[in-house]
């Protein structure tokens, strides 16, 4: 047996889970899909003293349309089920495009949508997409709940504003306007491997083919997902020409990212591929917006 001993709780409702988390305080840890946590426990890198397993709480798994045309996704919804949801395919093709890069099919079967975001891995796709789309996170604790903007949820590598006695319960995705296109591109050493660099973007055009909105997130090139300001500053109000997009790429890699050198890539290499990926991602998002999304 590889992991250290721990106390195990398997509540069957959200209220019971919140009671248990409140009692355990700093000793408690939520177990979602376990696809990051159990791996870390097998290495004994993680040694939680108590786990609160949410796998027996069916009320946390759903994909529900919201009144404004967006979606609410329960935290325990498996990535596999998000990837195959007709509601998601219809509204947010970006989530479908990104899913096949997340780990492997067998891991997406078990890993959860909310767990991946709560894990806040700077090289993880879903934490970055939650920042890019500014998903609204519903955080619950015993007798209380609060909403946090996706942009404010992640505060450091593997760190979020979620406290030990709290849990992430739901993510709400706001609908995209008409003429919105999105794209995800990454470079990794092998299929299913973590990205050396990756870029996701969402662009909305007006009737005159000028950018109404342009958002872009840069992954694996800093301690947290980096939401670019340059894309908006340079593109909004203007035509997204090749020159304008190249200017975004130049400024993004020189002023916005802080890539590290590690086993997987050097900082210089990361900077150089990021420049190319920014151009590719924005260009494709614009093309898709022109075709209606």
């Amino acid at each position, binding site marked *: 047996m590889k992991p250290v*001993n*721990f106390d195990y709780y398997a509540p069957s409702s959200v209220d019971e889970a919140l009671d248990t988390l409140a009692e355990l305080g700093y000793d408690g840890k939520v177990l979602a899909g*376990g696809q990051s946590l159990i791996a870390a426990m097998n290495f004994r890198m993680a040694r939680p003293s*108590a786990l609160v397993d949410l*796998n027996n709480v069916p009320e946390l798994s759903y994909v529900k349309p919201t009144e404004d045309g967006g979606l609410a996704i329960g935290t325990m919804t498996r990535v596999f089920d998000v990837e195959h949801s007709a509601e998601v395919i219809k509204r947010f093709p970006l989530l479908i495009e990104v899913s*096949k890069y997340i780990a492997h*099919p067998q891991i997406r*079967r*078990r890993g959860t949508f909310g767990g991946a975001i709560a894990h806040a891995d700077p090289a993880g796709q879903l934490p970055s997409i939650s920042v890019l789309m500014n998903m609204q996170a519903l955080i619950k604790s015993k007798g209380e709940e609060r909403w946090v903007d996706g942009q404010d949820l992640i505060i450091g590598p593997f760190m979020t504003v979620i406290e030990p006695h709290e849990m992430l319960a739901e993510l709400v995705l706001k609908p995209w306007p008409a003429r919105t296109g999105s794209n995800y591109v990454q470079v990794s050493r092998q299929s299913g491997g973590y990205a050396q660099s990756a870029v996701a973007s969402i662009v909305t055009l007006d009737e005159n083919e000028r950018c109404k909105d342009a958002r872009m997130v840069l992954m694996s090139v800093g301690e947290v997902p980096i939401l670019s300001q340059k894309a908006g500053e340079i593109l909004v109000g203007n035509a997204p020409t090749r020159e304008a997009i190249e200017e975004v790429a130049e400024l993004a890699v020189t002023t916005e990212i802080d890539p590290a050198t590690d086993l997987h890539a050097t900082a210089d290499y990361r900077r150089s591929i990021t420049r190319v990926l920014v151009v590719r991602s924005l260009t494709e998002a614009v093309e898709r917006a022109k075709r209606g999304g």
Partner: protein
Amino acid sequence: MSNKLFPITVTVNGVEYKREVEARLLLSDFLRHDLGLLGTHVGCEHGICGACTILFDGGAVRSCLIFAVQANGHEIRTVESLGTPENLHPLQQSFHEKHALQCGFCTPGFLMTLVPFLEENPHPSDDEIREAIDGNICRCTGYEKIVEAVQDAAAKNSQAK
């Protein structure tokens, strides 16, 4: 922290087992050590290699990244549920004929990934097969023969219909 034992009831390959397990016991170790089902192989124990892939309520998952206690009330299928040496499962037969294994260490994981895949995609393209097995490492075959075996099984299956 306790060594508390949790009673579980799990159906494995159609047989119901009642056991008591420590919370930290991995499902892969439960299958191998407690039930003696040695077909499920353990390579890395952190989700990379895919050798431990089993079916959990019909879906292919890593048994090294699930605790046995979490299988309580669920249905598990392992490679032992496929064929016997005298009567191989059609996919096993195709692996055999197409030389899709050498040492065989990775094979149970490939089979348990590909059996449900073929049920959902009876006529897969080579690319779809490669995507389906991107979470399974094979150090021997170079994967070509595995893709051929899957195509062989798919072709024989549609002929049989």
